[in-house]
């Protein structure tokens, strides 16, 4: 039983430690661009600060997912006679959410930054830029939602007594966690450039949003491969 607690504490630290990297950098990027835009357009300070906080709040979602899993892990109490292998499941859950939110956090910051840039250039476009930013950030968060799903599955299922299966489960957590980094950053890059383009050419917003969502959906495919491999490793093997 003590061994399981040991694993759950280690996993809690990994979950929130790794999981806050992305969001912190992403939010800092938004604030950096907001300060830059304020220097150019001090009169638009109200709009800029409001949109900055909205953007940062959405970016924070990834870190909040990691926090939730981390708190579950901190307060995890093993049942009497629970298999020691449950510890590896908990470790895998922590790695999945910790690594899996790095990309979404970084990716969420990129469109926020370019939205600030657009508002700094033309404050009258702030409404459509905000909508565009939130759509882009929402799609970016899918990778962290996949990681959260896998992590919660790993927290809740009963451990197997087969050591081979335990290796498969740790592999499943790593597949989802590492696999969510790239698509998260990639989605953010798409949304960033789409937002910049909308800022320069607001009349083409419909076309740009459509292309952005198609581009993000294709970027998301590798994330879905990771999810599939992860679920195969957890349930099928």
């Amino acid at each position, binding site marked *: 039983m003590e061994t399981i607690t040991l694993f759950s504490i280690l996993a809690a630290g990994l979950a929130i430690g790794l999981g806050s990297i992305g969001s912190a950098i992403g939010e800092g990027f938004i604030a950096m661009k907001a300060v830059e835009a304020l220097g150019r357009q001090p009169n638009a300070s109200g709009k800029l600060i409001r949109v900055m906080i909205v953007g940062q709040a959405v970016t924070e979602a990834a870190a909040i997912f990691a926090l939730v899993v981390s708190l579950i892990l901190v307060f995890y109490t093993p049942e009497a006679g629970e298999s020691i292998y449950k510890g590896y499941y908990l470790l895998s859950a922590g790695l999945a959410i910790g690594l899996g939110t790095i990309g979404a956090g970084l990716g969420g910051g990129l469109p926020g930054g370019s939205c600030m840039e657009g508002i700094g250039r033309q404050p009258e476009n702030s409404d459509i830029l905000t909508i565009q930013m939130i759509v882009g950030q929402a799609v970016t968060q899918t990778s962290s939602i996949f990681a959260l799903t896998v992590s919660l599955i790993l927290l809740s299922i009963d451990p197997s007594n087969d050591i081979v299966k335990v290796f498969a489960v740790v592999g*499943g957590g790593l*597949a989802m966690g590492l696999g969510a980094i790239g698509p998260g*950053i*990639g989605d953010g890059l*798409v949304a960033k450039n*789409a937002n*910049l383009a909308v800022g320069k050419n607001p009349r083409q917003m419909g076309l740009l949003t459509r292309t952005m969502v*198609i*581009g993000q959906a294709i970027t998301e495919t590798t994330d879905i491969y990771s999810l599939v491999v992860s679920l195969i490793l957890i349930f099928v093997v």
Partner: protein
Amino acid sequence: MEAITGQELIRAVALLGAGIAMGLGAIGPGIGEGFVAGKACEALGKRPDQSQLITRTMIIGQAISETTGIYSLIVALILIFVV
């Protein structure tokens, strides 16, 4: 924990390797495809009249970036089901 040897060890490490293969293998294509679509959006903002050409090129470019992700998927599935 009981000792793990021979064929079982190979199977266990192959499964762990499948997870690492797919996980690390998804990082590159994700970022690469994001670059393609991002620059496509930038180009569309400048030349909205060329939207068909730009979207087509974007999808071809992303499909090619995707290939390494598919290699990872295949290797992961081989490690899971064949090894």
